[in-house]
């Protein structure tokens, strides 16, 4: 049996539904430019119908079923993965960019230039072997070259430190986003457990996961409430858990030094916040290296050196330090900076090899007789320590007068044969693996598979250039891909102002119509109550 009040109620429900829809449209417009926002829609359906005896089902108006956010979870996940890859190469490219600036080639002021100047000074000495000025110029040009190499090595090392600091910051960012996500998980749980959908919180959750993915890749799973739990990509280590498991956070190895009893003392930036020093024996180092995929039977200093900047996982709560290892981070800023560190290490190593090769060759020619035997009072031009590039220097005992232009100190003053032999080193192909050897007179022999000194330097520059070019190409491609994906997300979840305005008009009209129903009912009631009967 239907009554006027019942109809009034139906109209009222209609009013409420249109008003709520209007409100949601307003919410959408308000958030049209909010990052990560997904448009929302009030799902309306016809309410439960009455059974009208002998007639059939009588509708009772509209019911607001839910407020949904419109998202394509698959696209969101894809964006996360592809952005993570984009960030890898962006971070890597930024690091190599700075390296390129340090090498400063091609230019008239780079190392290549000083190298040429040094060889030219020997060439000039070979023409003016009598002249002390020419010898002084040789010493000064050699010094300028050594200092340029030192300066470059210093800059590269500080770039390395900077990149490690960057990695610490990455770890800190990652950990703090995870902490925020933990708090968000609680909020989501509170709302979801009263069977409501926390749309805006879920948007925030997705946004944070997106930000997290720019730092490092991970495996995310969602439970029935919409809470997220995060593990490393290989699923081995919990980073954010909803079931109370022990969780780990990202930490970075910032320094490793061999100590006197065969072990290593390792400085860990725990969680990217505080540094902690631990000691590790060879087996520990071996494990770290194995995670990197290196079968380390003999641990070399270079291997150990390359562990600096490595991200490890440490316990977040509880006593002591529990380290877990995983090589599952394969994209994001952390991976990019790590790959950048590798390029830096490669260039340091190559610069060291280059400095050593150059210094050895020049010293060899300057200190030996034609038979290739070292002579006591023929002194080295260059000296260097463990890291040739940063420690390359002019021999302290070297004065201009000790520069040997001729065959020996007793040679006539016009003999420039040794200076000429050193100048001609410029075109000799050297191979650091092989022993230096005189060919004809004081000229060094070309070696099989060798490169010239200038060639060796150019190779370092080219290697850096190729890494950067490769990274830049991937960035360009990846940007297009991410752009396309973001368009797809925007096309699904984005707010269209025109659409919302149209909806607003639609809801307004429906609202007005519902109001009209109420007005009509009110008139009818007025007739019924005030004008019938008495």
């Amino acid at each position, binding site marked *: 049996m239907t009554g006027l009040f019942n109809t009034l109620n139906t109209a009222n429900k209609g009013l409420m539904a249109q008003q709520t829809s209007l409100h949601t449209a307003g919410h959408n417009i308000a958030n049209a430019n909010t990052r990560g926002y997904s448009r929302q829609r009030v799902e309306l359906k016809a309410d439960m119908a009455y059974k009208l005896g002998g007639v059939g089902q009588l509708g009772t108006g509209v019911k607001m079923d839910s407020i949904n956010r419109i998202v394509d979870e698959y696209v969101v996940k894809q964006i996360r993965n592809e952005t993570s890859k984009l960030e890898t190469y962006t971070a890597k490219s930024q690091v190599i960019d700075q390296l390129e600036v340090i090498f400063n080639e091609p230019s008239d002021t780079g190392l290549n230039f000083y190298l040429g100047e040094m060889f030219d000074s020997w060439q000039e000495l070979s023409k003016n072997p009598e002249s002390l000025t020419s010898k002084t110029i040789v010493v000064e040009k050699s010094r300028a070259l050594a200092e340029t190499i030192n300066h470059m090595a210093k800059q590269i090392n500080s770039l390395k430190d900077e990149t490690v600091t960057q990695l610490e910051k990455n770890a800190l960012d990652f950990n703090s986003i995870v902490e925020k996500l933990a708090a968000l998980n609680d909020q989501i749980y509170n709302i979801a457990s009263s069977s409501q959908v926390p749309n805006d919180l879920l948007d925030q959750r997705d946004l944070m996961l997106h930000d997290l993915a720019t730092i490092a890749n991970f495996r995310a799973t969602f439970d029935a409430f919409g809470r997220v739990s995060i593990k490393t990509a290989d699923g081995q280590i919990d980073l954010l858990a909803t079931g109370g498991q022990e969780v780990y956070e990202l930490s970075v190895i910032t320094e490793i030094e061999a100590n006197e009893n065969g072990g290593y003392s390792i400085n860990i930036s725990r969680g990217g916040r505080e540094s902690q020093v631990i000691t590790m024996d060879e087996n520990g180092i071996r494990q770290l290296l194995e995670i990197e995929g290196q079968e380390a039977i003999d641990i070399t200093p270079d291997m150990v050196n390359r562990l600096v900047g490595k991200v490890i996982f440490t316990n977040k709560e509880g006593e002591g330090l529990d380290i877990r290892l995983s090589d599952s981070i394969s994209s994001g800023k952390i991976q990019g900076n790590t790959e950048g560190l590798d390029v830096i290490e490669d260039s340091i190593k190559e610069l060291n090899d280059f400095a050593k090769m150059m210094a050895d060759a020049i010293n060899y020619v300057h200190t030996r007789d034609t038979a290739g035997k070292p002579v006591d009072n023929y002194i080295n031009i260059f000296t260097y320590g463990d890291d040739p590039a940063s420690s390359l220097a002019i021999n302290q005992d070297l004065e201009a007068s000790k520069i040997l232009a001729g065959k020996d100190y007793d040679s006539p003053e016009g003999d420039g044969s040794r200076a000429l032999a050193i100048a001609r080193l410029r075109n000799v192909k050297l191979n650091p693996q092989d022993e230096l050897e005189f060919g004809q007179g004081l000229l060094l022999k070309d070696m099989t598979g060798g490169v010239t000194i200038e060639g060796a330097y150019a190779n370092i520059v080219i290697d*850096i250039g190729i890494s950067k*070019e490769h990274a830049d190409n991937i960035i360009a491609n990846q940007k297009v891909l991410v752009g396309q994906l973001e368009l797809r997300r925007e096309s699904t979840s*984005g707010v269209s102002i025109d659409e919302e305005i149209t909806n607003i008009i639609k809801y307004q009209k429906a609202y007005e119509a519902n109001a009209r129903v109420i007005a009509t009912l009110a008139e009818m009631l007025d007739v019924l109550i005030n004008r019938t009967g008495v």
Partner: protein
Amino acid sequence: MRITNKVLSDTFLRNLSTNLNQMYKYQQQLSSGKLVSRPSDDPLLVAKIMSMDNNIALNEQYNTNIRDSLGWVKTQDTALADATSTLQRIKDLIIYGANGSLSELDRSAISEEVKQKLDQLADILNTSFDGRYIFAGQKTHSRPFKVEDGELVYNNYLNPDDPDAEINYDENSNNVFREISQGVEIKLITDGNKLMRAEDVENEDNKNLGDLLSNVIDALDKGDTEKLSGELLADIQKHIDNVVRVRTQIGAIYNRLEAAEERNIQENLHLKELLSQREDIDIAERFMEYTVMSNVYVASLNIGAKILQPSLLDYLR
């Protein structure tokens, strides 16, 4: 596909930034004049440029070497021309002095002139270039020729304790060397001993120019006209021939150096041209491209302003 306002504005921004990036690249190339400014712009090209830069610098060094050597050799040539005419004059004096009808006084005047010529010869052979004696072997700072007790002597033997070693010395060791192109060394003849010794003189006493000239003075003083017109006259001719021979060798070196300079300049031009082809931009072409790009940029700004503005809101009320 559902297109929202943000899709429009994002796409617009992305394209605009692509255009700007391209413009930036052209601008960089136009303002520097160079195709590449960093290794990553084109690593292989940068490798080529670096090696060409080195080759050009090296070539320029060779050019200085060649020009220095040319100066040296030219000075030597002039000195030897003078030396030859001095010796020629001595020869004339010998012929004159061999005339049996000359008086004692005449002959002593001739002897006096020969002595003068001896000093002159020493001075000529002691010519220096750029602060270095040019016929001093490698002992470029010690004066090679001297007139001692009326005798012309060469001081700069490789082994002064054993002047006889001069016969067996390794001829390479007392000359100076210059690198004139990659791997090519040229030997500048500086050994003054070569000028002193005429190996084809049979008489041991006259083999050395100094000894010969002493003998000449001796013969003049003694009035030994037979010796003067005989062996001394024959031997001084041989010595003149010897000096001319050395001068011819030096001339050959001069020619070789001139050819090398020619080649060096050509090579340098060629290298520079090659470098410019690789490294430099074609300004006209790049400027056209830049203009096209900036037109595209302006057009996209224009269109952007048109498509981004209107919305349904403009038409309500």
